[in-house]
Structure formats: structure tokens, C-alpha cells
């Protein structure tokens, strides 16, 4: 539903999505400080994107500041793009924060199960390991960063050198870990060919599904 509204250019839908996002954030009790921290890096990206849109989109210039190489269309387009992407990031952060990896994995397996010749068990395991590796990789990055700082590595301001010094140990450790996990899976008798028992859908998941169904019914009725 959110995706369908976000691909439109209707501002009222954007306002609806924004209000809904704020309401959902309040409901989820997600710490506001944490949200700001998560959005910090994306905000820089959005700002750069906004500048590009503003400076490169042709159109009529502002009367009051004609000397500025900025068009009205550019500001509108840049604003809408950043608003849309900001909403996508916001929903992504919220979704990641309130969904357990196991639920994601189960949902994926449930979708893939009817498709023949797809090893749903392997795909499910890969997803769960990827999610796990992602958080572990972030931990390693943090650890390597701290280790660099301990040896005054933060004094060097060259971003390429910093990236190289960070990437190499993290990459090496990741590869070693992948090898270890492969062995550990084999040691615990991992097999692709076994059927999977998915847990039952809980009531807390059924309620939003019914809500969504009701929403579509209402939209369909209004369209008629």
C-alpha cells in the first residue's frame, strides 16, 4: 500500500504516508534519538541529491534571487524526490526495527514454497545468515575502527587509505568466518532436501492483514 502511494506524485498521498509513518513510529516506541542516528548518513545523501536536482533541472528562476542558478521546478522536483526517499528510508528503518529476522525468513520461505525447483530451505538459511552476517560485519567494522584509533590511525585523514585499512581486515575476517560457518553447518548435518515446518501466523500479524484487506475493499468500492 505504501509503495503504491509512494510512486505517485500526489502531495496529499505523501502527507498521508508521512502522518502514518509518524503514527507508526509512536506506536512502535522506537527511540527517537536512534531514528535520528539512523537517518544521519542518509540525510547527507539526500541533501546531495537535492542539490543535484535543484542545480541541474532547467526551468524558471526565482524573481527575488535571479542570480541563483536554481529553478522553481528543480526545487519542487528535488523536494519531492527527497521527501519520497526519506519516507522510504523511514519505513525501511521501522520495518527492520520491528520485524524479527526469523519472521522475514519464514515469510520468504512461505512465498517461495509453491515455486518448483527452488530450494526454499537453502534460501531461508541464506537469508538468515546474511542478516546475521550483516550485523556481525558492522561489529567488526566498529572493532577495526577502534583498533585503528588505539594506534592513532584516526590521525590519518586520507579517506582512501582509511577505507583500505578498514576493508582489508574486515574482508579477510568475513571470508574466514564464511569458511568456518560452512564447516559448522556441515558438522551439524545440514541438508537441503528436508521439508520445512513454518510457524503458525500469530494474531498480531493477522490483524494488519485484515486491516489491509479492508482498506483494499474500501478503495475498490470507492472506485466503483
Amino acid at each position, binding site marked *: 500500500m505504501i509503495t503504491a502511494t509512494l510512486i505517485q506524485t500526489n502531495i496529499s498521498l505523501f502527507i498521508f504516508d508521512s502522518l502514518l509513518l509518524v503514527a507508526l513510529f509512536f506506536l512502535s516506541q522506537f527511540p527517537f534519538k536512534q531514528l535520528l542516528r539512523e537517518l544521519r548518513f542518509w540525510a547527507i545523501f539526500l541533501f546531495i541529491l537535492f542539490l543535484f536536482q535543484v542545480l541541474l533541472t532547467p526551468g524558471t528562476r526565482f524573481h527575488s534571487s535571479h542570480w541563483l542558478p536554481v529553478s522553481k521546478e528543480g526545487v519542487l522536483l528535488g523536494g519531492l524526490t527527497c521527501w519520497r526517499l526519506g519516507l522510504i528510508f523511514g519505513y525501511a528503518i521501522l520495518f527492520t526495527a520491528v520485524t524479527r529476522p526469523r519472521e522475514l525468513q519464514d515469510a520468504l520461505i512461505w512465498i517461495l514454497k509453491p515455486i518448483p525447483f527452488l530450494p526454499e530451505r537453502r534460501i531461508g538459511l541464506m537469508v538468515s545468515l546474511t542478516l546475521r552476517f550483516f550485523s*556481525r560485519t558492522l561489529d567488526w567494522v566498529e572493532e577495526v575502527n577502534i583498533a585503528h584509533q588505539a594506534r592513532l590511525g584516526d590521525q590519518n585523514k586520507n579517506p582512501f587509505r582509511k577505507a583500505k585499512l578498514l576493508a582489508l581486515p574486515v574482508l579477510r575476517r568475513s571470508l574466514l568466518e564464511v569458511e568456518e560457518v560452512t*564447516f559448522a553447518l556441515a*558438522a551439524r548435518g545440514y*541438508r537441503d532436501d*528436508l521439508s520445512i515446518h513454518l510457524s503458525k501466523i500469530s494474531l498480531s500479524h493477522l490483524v494488519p492483514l485484515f486491516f489491509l484487506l479492508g482498506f483494499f475493499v474500501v478503495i475498490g468500492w470507492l472506485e466503483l
Partner: protein
Amino acid sequence: MIQLHNLHHRYPDGTYALRGIDLTISKGEFLLICGANGSGKTTLLRIMSGLLKPTEGSISINGLNPVKEPWKVRQIVGMIFQDPDSQIVGETVREDIAFGPENLGLSLKEIKERVDWALEKMGLQSLSEKSCYLLSGGEKRRLAIAGVMAMKPEVILFDEPFTHLDYPGIQEVLKYMTRLHQEGHTLIVTTHDVEKVIAHIDRIAIIHKGEIKASGLPDHLVKELPQFGVRPPCYVILGGEKISWLE
């Protein structure tokens, strides 16, 4: 019974990890394989559990060949890895323990029974719904053991089980190891830190540069350890009786 005969393992770059290993391990034995870093301990354990293939020689575990029947061997032999984080695949403690029994193709009822049994055996009941990544070092190691125990293996291989553990963590793991031994499991432990297990093992095998240099009763071999890059236990250096880390 585990029998290794003239076992060699060579890495793709030509380095020999193991050279002519001959070793027989009886049922119910508690064997310590000790050696310096890079001596081939981990490679030897991985071959025993059917995870690596020897380049030469033969291996038999209860009459089964891990090269030809790795699936059957892994049902008999469980392995606890040096870093428990490599072994943990589940999100919660319960989920992780269930991974092995699921792979055995057991029914849901049987999986639950085995998980409950392993949780109780390793004293993890109160942590069953806890996220694996929030566990302490000792708890993670216990979880790794529980995950293997739920598959009910006869032989359990421990690769450097005391790494990164504090004193209570070491005692915790050691307590469960001795219990498993008393229950009749065959335990094979690799470590360079002999001190912690010396009071509980039946036999030592010293591995050096991929070769078994000596094998026998702990009291007969402890004095030879330094020449193979392994520190002997304190009681040998200072004189006195063997001391258990559980006391």
C-alpha cells in the same frame, strides 16, 4: 572406536598439515590432543568429523569411513568449534539447538523433546527464548555443546574449548565435559592449554608439525611437552599433585 592409519593431509598450496598420523581411540575415552599453534590439531578434528578429506591414509569411525559416508559419521560425531559464534545459526537459543535435530529429519514432537532435553542437560532452560547474540562467552559455549548434544552423538570433538573464556566459563565447560565423559561419551579435546584438562583426561597425544610425536598416560608425557612448544601444567613445574580446575 576411532582408527586413523597413516593419515596425511596436504593443503592446495602444498603445505602438509598432517603427516602419517596413526592413532586409535577407544570408546568412552577422554583424549587430549595437544600441540602448538599450526601443529594440525584442528585439521585432524575436521577429518575425524568428515568435514575434510585426507589426501592419503585411512580413517574409520565405528567401522564407517568419513570420506565415503560423511552424513552417517556426522550423526555419530559432534564437533564444538573454537569460536562458538561460527556454530550458532539460530536466532534464539531454542531455535539454534533445534537446527541439528531438524537436519536429522526428526518429527516436530521429537525435535521438541530433544531440544528440551539438551536445554535441561546444559542448564539453559531459563535462556531458551533469549537471543543467541546476547549470551555471555560461557553461555555461548554451552549453547554450542547443547546444539551438538541434541543430535545425540557418541563422540564429541572439542576444538580449543577454553578460548576467550574466563575462570567461571572454563569451569562451566569443564564441568559439562567431565559429565559427558562419565556418561560414556568419547571425548576428544584439542588445546595447547593442557593445565585446564590434565586432571580429567585418560590419555595425551602430542602433535607437532603434523605428526603424532607421543601418545600415552598424562603422567608419563607431561615432562616432554615443552620440547613440542606446549607449556606443561603448573604441578609439573612447581612440583606437587595434579589440581583440577573444578576444585
